């Protein structure tokens, strides 16, 4: 699905360079809106299930040395529903979300409480020490 969107996106860009007709510009504008809305920059995640932010351009090539658990926790960090993530440990943020009635996924808490070993998920948020 991601690759399909990319193809559509690149195709429109080419047409624009020709200095295209009004019809194609409006078509490209309406088509352009779609990837930006579903691609997920700063989405709220309020009504639709949030599309994974870090998969926007379809590549798994940034895996480095973290596992799937860490990936899920990063999605939790980025989810705007639970508020800002910087300045809190992930566990604290989970507890805060839980006490505010936002119902964060319970299995994330299990992940965070049994953190140990080299491949374990990080207790601090994604941006800790980086900003």
């Amino acid at each position, binding site marked *: 699905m991601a690759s399909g969107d990319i193809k559509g996106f690149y195709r429109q860009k080419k047409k624009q360079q020709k200095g295209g007709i009004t019809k194609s510009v409006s078509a490209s504008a309406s088509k352009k809106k779609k990837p930006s809305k579903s691609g997920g920059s*700063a989405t*709220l995640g*309020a009504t639709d299930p949030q599309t994974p932010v870090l998969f926007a351009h379809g590549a798994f090539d940034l895996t480095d040395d973290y596992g799937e658990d860490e990936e899920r926790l990063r999605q939790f960090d980025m989810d*705007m529903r639970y*508020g*800002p993530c*910087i*300045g*809190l440990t992930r566990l*604290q943020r989970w*507890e*805060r979300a839980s*006490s*505010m009635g936002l119902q964060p996924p319970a299995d994330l808490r299990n992940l965070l409480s049994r953190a140990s070993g080299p491949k374990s998920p990080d207790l601090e948020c994604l941006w800790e020490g980086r900003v």
Partner: protein
Amino acid sequence: MRVDVEMSGGSPKLLERKQAVYRNLDERYEIHGEKYKGQQYSHIYFTRLHYMRNLLYSLVPKWKPNLPVNTVLGLEEEKECIIVGTIYKHMKLKPSILDEYSKERSKVPLAKPHNFVHPDDHLILEDESGRVKLAGSLLDPSAFVTGIVVALHGKETSEGKFFVLDMLEAGLPPQIKQPPSLTEDKFVVFVSGLSIGSSTFNPLQFQLLVDHITGHLGDENEQTFASQIVHFIIAGNSVQILQGLLNGQTIAPRDQSTLTEPIKELDILLNQLAAAMPVDIMPGPSDPANFSLPQQPLNRCLFPGASAYNTFISSTNPHQFELDDIQFLGTSGQNIDDLFKYSEAKNKLEFMERTLRWRHLVPTAPNTLGCFPFTDRDPFLIESCPHVYFVGNQDKYETTLLRGSDNQSVRLICIPKFCETGVAVMLNLRNLECHALSFSTSLNV
């Protein structure tokens, strides 16, 4: 606590001081050893918006039932809807640290005005998804401040602004029902702005107050009156330490005593008071407590004499407590003074009413008023309406009874600075009526 009365030619009669059941509710304002880990203020705004938004969402169906509720990002042009968010007021004259570095130094006036309101101020509504400028003449920016959460009904214009058609504030919170009125008169005395250590402090004036309250003055009638006082509240600014000594240089031993003199004097006076009745002392902007709200209780080691009594209570600022089931909430004035700097109203009581309607005690924190960066809560949200709401260190004594739409009734009190006015405030718990107690030591009438 007994007050002895000497009757002419007879044996002394004993008058018992009345008592009221006191419950301290300051726990929400205490920091409990929470450490600052470098977090920013976004968390307070998030929790504030979350709580107020849920509240407003529950009120919106009764207000405008047929309109859709959107987020700021979901606004569509020319479509009427309701949005809920935090207000940000863009103020031209608001002092900014960056002004020191700006090239056009002449733009900023050197004399700082007391009020930063300007006709060009405009309002912006913000939620997690984005912000939108507010247009239309319904909302007057001079009545609003940054940090309050409201619901707005309107539509997006072609310029990308939001044209406001109507506004909904949370309104007065529900009140725990007032208990049936007491049968007897019981009084609470409020005083603030003693400023011991400043040049305006008149020791005789405060000593008069203490003597009167503890029953050492006057005849039997006066003493009967004094025996009905059940509690004494000092709402901030009890000491004033000479600023010249606090510039960071080491102080010579002979000057060190000028630092501690005011506090020692306060302790002696508090000792007399605490021996007679329960005393609550709140920290204020000039007291030796932390700067940012909520101010933590003044350390008991500052008052070696008074803290020996169990009637001496050092409380936080803001202070919340209960006397005979009557709910009290008050501050030492920083919240209202800050509203006064950044918005306009006809008097201080109106600012107090606005904070109740917005259901937030200190709306300008953390924007212009220092505040601890809480991560999981906003302790200044007013969840239930108090019966008595007081603010200390104001210029003059003002009071009114505010009635809410849901049968709430609140007594609003502005306590004047005692060092300047010599006025203390007495509140009757039976009917929540207030009157001023004025002390003067000048000999010319």
